[in-house]
């Protein structure tokens, strides 16, 4: 399993965090200018997955906009097609907090959009009741990452961003999300899961 990229969007539809992971298994694909890649993405020398492997070069910002547009439309479409079905179904997630971890039931809305797959990558989606949207792009073989996104929200975002008093309450332009603790923990967590 490989994780290509990860995005967080806030309730104002703004991308407040994005991270691209370098892919180890393939040589640099043509057409990508390493200098155009933001510094936080680790090894800039390798292929960055489908998020970047397009002939037309888009900035990271444009990537994020495209992704938001996609998930926003998909989510609304899924809701419309599914009808006004606000029932919830149970899925399973890790418990958080102290003590040993165990799997626990968690409610999700029946008609919510969870993921989509193309021949090249899979996009996983998770939205909190506060309208924060978590998106992860992985290879096509990866199983359901919804719980992983939920855990990133609960254990990393809430702990290191929300509770950090030096980070602003809201994050226009992504201010305050990419702090050291969060970045470190996210990187470790994603490496640990995959």
């Amino acid at each position, binding site marked *: 399993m490989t994780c290509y990229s990860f995005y967080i969007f806030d309730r104002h539809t703004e991308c407040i965090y994005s991270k691209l992971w370098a892919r180890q298994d393939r040589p640099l694909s043509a057409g990508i200018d390493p200098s155009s890649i933001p510094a936080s993405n680790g090894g800039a020398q390798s292929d960055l997955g489908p998020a970047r492997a397009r002939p037309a070069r888009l900035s990271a910002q444009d990537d994020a906009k495209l992704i938001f547009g996609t998930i926003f439309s998909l989510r609304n479409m899924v809701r419309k097609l599914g009808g006004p079905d606000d029932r919830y179904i149970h899925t399973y997630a890790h418990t958080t907090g102290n003590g040993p971890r165990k799997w626990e039931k968690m409610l999700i809305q029946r008609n919510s959009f969870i993921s989509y797959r193309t021949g090249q990558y899979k996009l996983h989606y998770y939205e909190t009741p506060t309208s924060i949207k978590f998106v992860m792009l992985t290879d096509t073989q990866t199983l359901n990452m919804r719980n992983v996104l939920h855990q990133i929200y609960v254990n990393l975002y809430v*702990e290191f961003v929300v*509770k950090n*008093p*030096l980070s602003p309450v809201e994050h226009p332009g992504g201010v305050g999300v990419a702090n*050291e603790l969060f970045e470190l923990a996210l990187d470790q967590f994603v490496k640990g899961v995959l």
Partner: protein
Amino acid sequence: MASSQPIKSPMGSQSQNQRSSQQGLKYPSNGKTIYHRPLNRSRTQELSQASFAYLFGEMVSYAQKRVTGIQDLEKRLNNQGHPIGLKLLDLLLYREPARSQTRPLHIIALLQFITTTLWRHLFSRPADALEKSSNPDTPEEYMISDNEPLVNQYISVPKEMNQLNCAAYVAGIVEGCCDGAGFPAKVTAHSVGKGEEGELWPGKTVFLVKFQDEVVEREAFLGR
């Protein structure tokens, strides 16, 4: 005990009764006032650590808007901790068993009270170390270390502010405690979680307690 400055020290109940007919504070008719609650009631009560983190966070960001620099910010946090130290000194001594219910008379006794009784009360564990400065030129300096201060738990200090240590609030509490006990001092918080030791305790903080000269003089005199 009052928790903050807008709250006056409890007035004698006599004067209260005399005044209540004309002016002064109003009280609920069911008598639910602070004087009817045992002072020890909240001694072992617990609240969520998150609540503290949010309040402390707002305190820091409110202070941030009104200061000119990091030193100024730390000074302000220190000032806000100070009255709490004063009050906790009284409250915690009052709660000690009768035989040890005395004010500390020596520097060491005071610092031990701070690193054990006060620390345990506030953070549920004693401080990690108490040392005297080994420099003969600064006999007035003592150091209290805390490997991971509870108040800093959720704080990730950005690089451009790496001098900041929000435990200045705790330094203020310690300072208030020293001042209240008659050992006037200046207390500052310093991050020392760097280098080898930093790997184990990146948030390690040393509280530098600098007693005023007269305290050291008095101590020397008493020692003789």
